[in-house]
């Protein structure tokens, strides 16, 4: 009996429930990625089978085929340029504005800030037709610059909102001392404020890059040539291409994985910064 007792160990039902919950949570989040991933590494002739191959013999043939069939590198370059350009423009413009709102109060500036933040609510889909006309008149249809301009504008309200609360966290005494020492505004911003704000600026930069990388509406509406199409547009085009077997799910999955992997890496590198940035607006 004594020996048997040794094997009786208590399972804490709370801990058990917690880990069952964790498994369910991870399962629900990760299943689509598992499916996308195995579809990307399954050769075309095995992809359309009943039941599906849950553990296929991995192959990179789909990726090779993808690069052959679409101008993949152009689209990748466009997506990267679109993301970096949008982050640069939106963060720098928003930083200046946020500094103005946070530190140079004038009568009515808080109303202006409220208006700016609430303009986040304007549905971007509504502005697509007029923006198309504006960009066409400026000769900016089918250009990355045009996309960067409209996407930055979309991100400005959120970025200003977040940066204002970051700036307010910095003790003002350092800036005051610099002003007394005779620093001009550009000197103040460049030498004092920006070095202190590096982590916050990096945070908004990453979030805005992710937003631009993921954006579909603008490139879909304003880019119709290889010159300015992004990966998000190209995956919809690969999807449109029907073959006698149906949709080319091998290529769609391969392209989907290439679009997802950089974002997953970004999340793993900078999850703390992303969470701070995303919640900064809503939480004080």
């Amino acid at each position, binding site marked *: 009996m004594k020996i048997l007792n040794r094997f009786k160990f208590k399972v804490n039902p709370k801990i058990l429930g917690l880990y069952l919950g964790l498994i369910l949570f991870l399962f629900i989040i990760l299943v*689509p990625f598992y499916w996308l991933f195995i579809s990307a590494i399954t050769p075309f002739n095995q992809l359309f089978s009943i039941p599906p191959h849950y553990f296929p013999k991995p192959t990179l043939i789909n990726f090779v085929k993808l690069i052959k069939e679409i101008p993949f590198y152009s689209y990748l370059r466009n997506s990267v340029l679109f993301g970096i350009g949008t982050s640069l423009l939106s963060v720098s413009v*928003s930083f200046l504005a946020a500094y103005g709102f946070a*530190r140079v*109060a004038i009568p009515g500036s808080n109303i202006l800030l409220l208006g700016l933040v609430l303009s986040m609510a304007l549905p971007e889909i509504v502005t697509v*037709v007029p923006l198309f006309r504006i960009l066409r008149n400026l000769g900016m249809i089918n250009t990355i610059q045009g996309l960067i301009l409209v996407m930055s504008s979309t991100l400005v309200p959120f970025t200003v909102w977040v940066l204002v609360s970051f700036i307010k966290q910095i003790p003002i005494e350092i800036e005051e001392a610099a002003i007394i020492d005779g620093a001009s505004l550009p000197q103040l911003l460049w030498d004092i404020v920006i070095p202190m704000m590096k982590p916050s600026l990096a945070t908004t930069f990453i979030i805005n890059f992710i937003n631009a990388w993921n954006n*579909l509406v603008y490139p879909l*509406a304003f880019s119709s040539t290889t010159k300015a199409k992004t990966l998000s547009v190209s995956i919809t085009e690969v999807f449109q291409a029907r073959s006698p077997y149906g949709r080319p799910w091998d290529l769609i999955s391969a392209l989907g994985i290439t679009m997802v992997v950089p974002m997953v890496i970004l999340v793993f590198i900078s999850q703390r910064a992303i969470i701070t940035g995303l919640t900064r607006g809503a*939480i004080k």
Partner: protein
Amino acid sequence: MNMKLSKVRLVEGNSKYSYKLSNTTRRYITFFLLVAPALLLRISTSVYPVLQTIYLSFFEVNLVSQTNLYVGLQNFIRLARDISIRDITSFTIMFTLLSTLLELIFGMIIANFLNTNFTGRQLARTINLIPWAIPTIVAALAFRWMFDDQYGLIVDWIYRLFGIRPALLVFPLTSQLSVILVNVWKNTPFTAIVLLAGLQNVPPELYEAARIDGANSLQAFRWITIPVSVPIIITLILFHIIWQLSGFDLIYGMTSGGPGIATTLIGYRIFQKGMLWYDWGTASALGVVLILIVAIIGIIGLYLFKKYEVTL
């Protein structure tokens, strides 16, 4: 964000009373120099296009038939008579409300879950960010493939469990529910992150005190967690409703609005009318309708902000 702006007089130095006109002017100039680029960008690519949309909604602009006529309220009358618009509007409302509700419920559960102590919590929090960080269009296509009525993963599981192979995206009701669930899958992590940040602001002593007073965890949730989270919940509801009303990517990728128009959202219809059928007049009229709905919800939201003392 605290709207009460700091009263520090940056440009003219420290003294509150050294108030010269030139300093005030300099202060105004400084402010507008700083804010001008952002405002110019917003006005030219957001305010102006919205005004354009309102203007265009009174015209019949069709690139295909090369027309450009003032038609008054004709576009709106046409929309009101269009039965498909009624179906689209009611699905948009159902999609928005049901999604927002489910996101809040699941978001709250996940936030509480990610707030408890367990090994691997940090990893779970990181993985939770992934659905938020990936392109909606990729998620939409991945789920379309998962729901495939012949080779899809979900259908295979349903077959193994129940012996049937349902064509989920072929029937209106099941495709509507599928679209809503995928939308919830995509957006709940964001909801959970924001709610979690709110929970982390609650001092643990509060829960400790409640436990000593004999409150169970459900009571603690009801009387501590919920009241603390109310401002965040209101902000989340407002922005979730507004963003989801104009949803586009998910529908474009997952169902293309079908079967028929069963999963067409207003935002998707505006895109179809404007960018695929070049019927800019009606597209703009529908855009105006969407802006009005958003404005009404925004006003209700601002009222609630005031009532519950939410500072943006």
